[in-house]
């Protein structure tokens, strides 16, 4: 005897949502290829292979059937690859994959159970373990034939020398940085697609960008002579990449509409605090990880009031 409902929306599956993320990443990958050259493809392939292998290995260790075809490990792989500089060594990349899937996901019980975004766990792991391979200097390769990577990343340049990059290259993406983050345009295109498909909840980007605009605006007003303006804050670094592709990971963000807005605002605030007051040039990774930890709390604080009010007779 089957239970109601007997109709399902078959166009909507977890796999399809993951596929949406991969589709949305296409413009980002395209821009990355244009800026950094064919090595990008090698790094993405390596990360995806590493993540799939890690997923298969760790799920078998737990004596579960690996669910590689749900594409979630592939998404982690692509996002991880795109968060690295073009110079990242192969072994660092692979270690990040195993840390991402193993420590970020499987130890919590696999898909849907993890508290922290797996790609960010992997990246944080290798950033601490191999500071030289991922620090600001790793982004700069003097004398490379690729113009972008012979200079400092826009955020490092601003931090160390107070130089602000020109806005148009920042928007288009022809600047140095992690593979996926340089083009604001590509991130906006992919993000728009995700939000329209409702694969990413629009509330999270609204929260993040809202907070950055408010705080960046205040900073601009306090220091009217600065050359690093609000638009630089929005277009430089991994803010837009993180906003649309990392913070919107459904598993590690809250469920309720209000919770999502607060979650986004928290990330935006932390990004600005880290950028302006800390020693790091960029703070998206740490901001996302910190707010991931707050997501269960936000869920509990923002239980919506049912239509018609709460169930009567509750002893609370």
């Amino acid at each position, binding site marked *: 005897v089957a239970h109601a409902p007997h*109709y*399902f929306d078959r166009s909507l599956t977890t796999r399809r949502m993951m596929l949406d993320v991969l589709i949305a990443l296409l413009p980002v990958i395209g821009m990355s290829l244009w800026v950094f050259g064919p090595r990008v493809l090698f790094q993405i392939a390596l990360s995806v292979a590493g993540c799939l292998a890690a997923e298969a290995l760790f799920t078998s260790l737990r004596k579960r059937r690996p669910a590689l075809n749900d594409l979630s490990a592939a998404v982690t792989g692509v996002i991880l690859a795109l968060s690295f500089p073009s110079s990242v060594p192969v072994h660092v990349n692979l270690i990040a994959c195993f840390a991402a899937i193993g420590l970020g996901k499987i130890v919590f019980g696999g898909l849907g159970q993890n508290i922290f975004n797996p790609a960010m766990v992997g990246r944080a792991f290798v950033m601490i373990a191999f500071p030289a391979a991922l620090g600001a200097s790793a982004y700069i390769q003097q004398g490379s034939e690729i113009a972008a990577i012979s200079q400092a990343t826009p955020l490092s340049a601003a931090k160390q020398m107070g130089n602000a990059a020109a806005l148009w290259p920042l928007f288009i993406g022809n600047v140095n940085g992690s593979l996926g983050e340089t083009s604001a345009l590509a991130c906006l295109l992919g993000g728009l697609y995700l939000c329209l498909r409702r694969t990413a909840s629009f509330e999270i980007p609204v929260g993040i960008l809202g907070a950055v605009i408010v705080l960046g605006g205040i900073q601009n007003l306090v220091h009217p002579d600065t050359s690093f303006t609000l638009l630089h804050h929005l277009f430089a670094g991994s803010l837009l990449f993180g906003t649309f592709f990392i913070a919107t990971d459904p*598993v590690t963000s809250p469920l309720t509409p209000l919770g999502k807005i607060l979650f986004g605002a928290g990330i935006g605030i932390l990004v600005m605090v880290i950028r302006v007051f800390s020693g790091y040039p960029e703070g998206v990774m740490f901001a996302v990880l910190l707010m991931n930890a707050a997501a269960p709390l936000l869920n509990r604080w923002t239980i*919506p009031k*049912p*239509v018609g009010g709460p169930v009567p007779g509750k002893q609370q």
Partner: protein
Amino acid sequence: MTAMTENGKKTFPRGIHPPEGKEASRNAPVEVLPEPDSLVIPLVQHIGAPCEPAVSPRQKVSAGDLLGRSEKFVSAPVHAPLPGTAGLPISTTLPNGRHVAAIPLKVEKGSKRGEEIWNTLVSSDWPVSGLEERDPESIRKDVLDGGLVGQGGASFPTHVKFVRNEKKPVRVLLVNGCECEPCLTADDRLMRETPGAIVSGALLAARASGAQEIKIVVERNKPEAIEKLRHACRETPVTVVPVETKYPMGGERQLIPAVLGQSVPTGGLPLDIGVVVVNVASAASVALAVLKKTPLTHRVVSVSGRGIRESKNLFVPVGIPLSTLVEFCGGLTENAARVIAGGPMMGFTPGSLECPVTKGTSGFVVLTRDEASAIDESACVRCGRCVDVCPLHLVPTKIAIAARFQNWEVARAHHLAACCECGCCAYTCPAGIPLVQLIRTGKARMPRE
């Protein structure tokens, strides 16, 4: 048709738009089912106390004679749909899986009772004036004696809704013609073919309950019904309100906010905010019971879905087995896989094709193998789509998973008991989690406070 837009867009927040599936039967006029050889008439066809048999075995009964009744207040008597000979009470299984006592009836052929009632319903001489002078208590008594129950699915005894309560005066009567379940067209056909009876019944129901305002609410995907009803109520205080086509518009807790902008308190009734809701079929039955003293023994049933050869709307006696209806509709197709009593969103799968039609059965939908195959369940990725569609603004995944692990504290904090089981969440869930099933099981197992 300009009046269609006069009220703006009446709707409720969230909800879903499943495929409507009404094309197959919406233009099939109601046919009166040929007289069957026998019926099995359940003694419980409503929410409330079961009836005791009022006939002895081998007793001859005429059409409309009492078969069972109860002294309890929340109950409704059961009548013989056709003349014949009553048998020894037996046990039968309702579409919802409940085992109940039933009286078998060997039908005496040749009475034409079904045609008589249907012709009365479609006739154009239903009165629309003078009804407001009738005694409310006598209307209520006729409704009770006629065995009326809500015909939209929940089968709540109708006379209970008409009891006047001085502390909670009724302002508005909503006549529910939304029929938001996919595939069902019984109410649509009834509104198009018997609008006069519905309007008369609505006026009587308003008089009985004390309502001053009477609104017949119809989803916009039934323009013919809206037009026919508007024509039928043009010299009356009754208005027809078109609302957005959206599931679950026909649920009381969605319908009332959509039309009146007020929500029903959780755990309360529409009566708490001065509203009574009756289904259009119930309104027509009120007219029959009060003005023609004809009890509720027949109803319109849609038989539809891709798994049935010919989709039809039939006027049938209660107690007729599903198998007879399937046979009359040309039988099942080769790839038919599942029969649902009610609609595909909230209907039940009966245990056998012998299950009888009751007063609350609005249709049977037959799904094919492709339609019935479930999505494999995977882990919740907390995408929040269930939250985005829940018409009551709950967090279904939290409730369902708390119920699965019997974590009653969390289930209660997320308002488990408020869920109306409409199925929007499970329809939408990308991980194929049986959210409604888990929540319903949780409601039954949660310890009382």
